[in-house]
């Protein structure tokens, strides 16, 4: 038997085993970093395996679908596993140095159990090819995410965590009711088999599509169910915010894309798909406007997440039937999600450093940052390029693909959304970065240099992704629609 299933198992099992071990106060950091290196190695191994051998389906327990659960490692899953790893590992390194300084103090080891639970849940989610299994994985992710939000235990964080927990639970149960409809109608939970069975797109299937999408909207903080996100992401410690904004939201949005790519490909007509796209567009505009009107640094970045997630939905109205993941709209959406994960993580880490240096979470804290903390300022600026979608960033490549799809399909109205969203992003990014070049006499505590470089490194990754767009699309093509 080949090594690929063992690597898949390792990607989930290593963080799961490490999570309870990291409860030990003295071991926590070392256990988590070792597990992080192991999990990252497994994820990279999986990307290489997919690039070499193509997609792999592995029946867990030796029971093929529909009886058992099937892990579905295609190009998309591999890319997302690698994204999770390449975001989480630097964040972990960052956290070991920054958390003891940032508010948690001697209790910094509390970060590791939720960190590892989260990573395991994400990997399980990306691998899963089973709609019920996705529900369980999502619950693990949400639980860990709430733990991260409430790490510091201040009143605002607890309130944000409670709201997040309730919204996530409502979303999960709505999703689960949709799964129940799918199972009652088609008698299977496997994504591949459902795709074949749901080709009719009748009433129960449509209701299931609406329920599952609605539930995931809440989890992905997509407009109009986004209100919980900014307080939640804004009140977590910087490394936690980086994971939440970069990876957790992306994971829920990924499930929406996966479902509409496969299972609901035949569901609803143009109106339903255009409606989903319109909600995405509204999210882009509304989220950007809210980001523009914030006073707190972290709030600007958190609202920007709502805006950026909106773009992903544009793939749904643009997709042609029977395309594969490397088709323009899908590849564009995925690339945007990945580039956003790196950029947003970089931004949260960088602002975390600035907030530590100045002791204040305000846009005014940015004053003088360009002179005193140039590396950090660069990190924010470079990550901002991706959010705006300027070349050569990953955001540019992604939007280019979406634009091309919209143009060639004659759906010009999405072009306006893409361009308008970019302009608004430019406005809120400049609002942050502008004051950085002004003079300030306020004293700042210099953060450790390596931490600044981690933030810049992640921002650079989001930038350089635009140059690596072609290889990415090539890996995405390794799907074969569940074959």
């Amino acid at each position, binding site marked *: 038997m080949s090594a690929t299933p063992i690597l898949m198992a390792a990607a989930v099992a290593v963080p799961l085993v490490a999570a309870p071990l990291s409860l030990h106060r003295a071991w926590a950091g070392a256990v988590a970093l070792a597990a992080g290196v192991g999990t990252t190695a497994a994820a990279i191994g999986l990307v290489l395996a997919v690039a070499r051998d193509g997609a792999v389906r592995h029946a867990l327990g030796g029971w093929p679908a529909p009886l058992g659960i099937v892990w579905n490692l295609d190009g998309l899953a591999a890319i997302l596993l690698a994204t999770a790893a390449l975001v989480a590992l630097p964040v972990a390194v960052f956290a070991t140095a920054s958390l003891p300084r940032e508010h948690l103090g001697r209790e910094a080891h509390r970060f590791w159990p939720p960190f590892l639970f989260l990573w395991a849940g994400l990997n399980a989610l990306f691998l899963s090819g089973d709609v019920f299994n996705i529900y369980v994985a999502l619950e693990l992710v949400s639980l860990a995410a709430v733990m991260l939000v409430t790490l510091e235990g201040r009143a605002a964080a*607890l309130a944000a965590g409670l709201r997040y927990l309730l919204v996530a639970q409502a979303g999960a*149960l709505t999703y689960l009711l949709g799964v129940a409809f799918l*199972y009652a109608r088609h008698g299977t939970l496997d994504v591949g088999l459902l795709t074949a069975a749901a080709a009719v797109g009748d009433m129960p299937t449509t209701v299931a599509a609406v329920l599952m999408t609605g539930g995931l909207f809440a989890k992905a903080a997509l407009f109009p169910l986004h209100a919980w996100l900014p307080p939640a992401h804004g009140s977590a410690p910087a490394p936690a915010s980086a994971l939440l904004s970069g990876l957790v939201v992306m994971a829920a949005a990924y499930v929406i894309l996966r479902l509409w790519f496969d299972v609901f490909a035949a569901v609803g007509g143009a109106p339903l798909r255009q409606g989903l796209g319109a909600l995405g567009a509204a999210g882009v505009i509304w989220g950007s406007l809210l980001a523009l009107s914030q006073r707190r640094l972290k709030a600007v970045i958190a609202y920007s997440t709502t805006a950026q997630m909106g773009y992903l939905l544009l793939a749904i109205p643009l997709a042609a039937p029977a395309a594969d993941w490397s088709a323009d709209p899908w590849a564009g959406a995925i690339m945007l999600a990945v580039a956003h994960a790196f950029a947003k993580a970089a931004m949260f880490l960088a602002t975390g450093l600035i907030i530590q240096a100045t002791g204040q979470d305000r846009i005014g804290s940015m004053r003088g940052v360009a002179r005193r903390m140039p590396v950090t300022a660069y990190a924010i600026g470079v990550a901002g390029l991706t959010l705006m979608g300027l070349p050569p960033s990953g955001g540019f490549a992604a939007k280019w693909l979406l634009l091309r799809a919209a143009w060639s399909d004659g759906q010009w109205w999405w072009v306006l959304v893409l361009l308008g969203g970019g302009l608004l992003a430019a406005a809120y990014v400049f609002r942050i970065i502008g004051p950085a070049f002004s003079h300030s006499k306020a004293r700042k505590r210099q953060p450790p240099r390596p931490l600044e470089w981690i933030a810049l490194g992640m921002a650079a990754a989001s930038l350089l992704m635009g140059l690596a767009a072609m290889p990415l699309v090539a890996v995405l093509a390794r799907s074969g629609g569940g074959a």
Partner: protein
Amino acid sequence: MTSALLYAGAGVVLFAVALLALFLRRHLLRKLMAANIAGSGVFLFLLGTAADGDAPPDPVPQAMVLTGIVVTVSVTAYGVALLRRFADETGRDTLTEDGGGP
């Protein structure tokens, strides 16, 4: 109209009513109970549609519901603990809000 369908229908009603309460009710303990009841509704629906006359019902939804019960209990207990900590910290048992969302 079979008994099983009756339970599936009750499940749907429970889900909708509880989801509504989850948004409308202010007290957090009530919201947590609402989430629980919504879960029970989904579970009833799952099993109500899986029943097959007097034969034993499909075991797959049963396993799904069992998993769902464990997850729901975990989340509820965590939610109550979170609420207690929140109340300790603030002296409040509701979230202040400007409208919208639970």
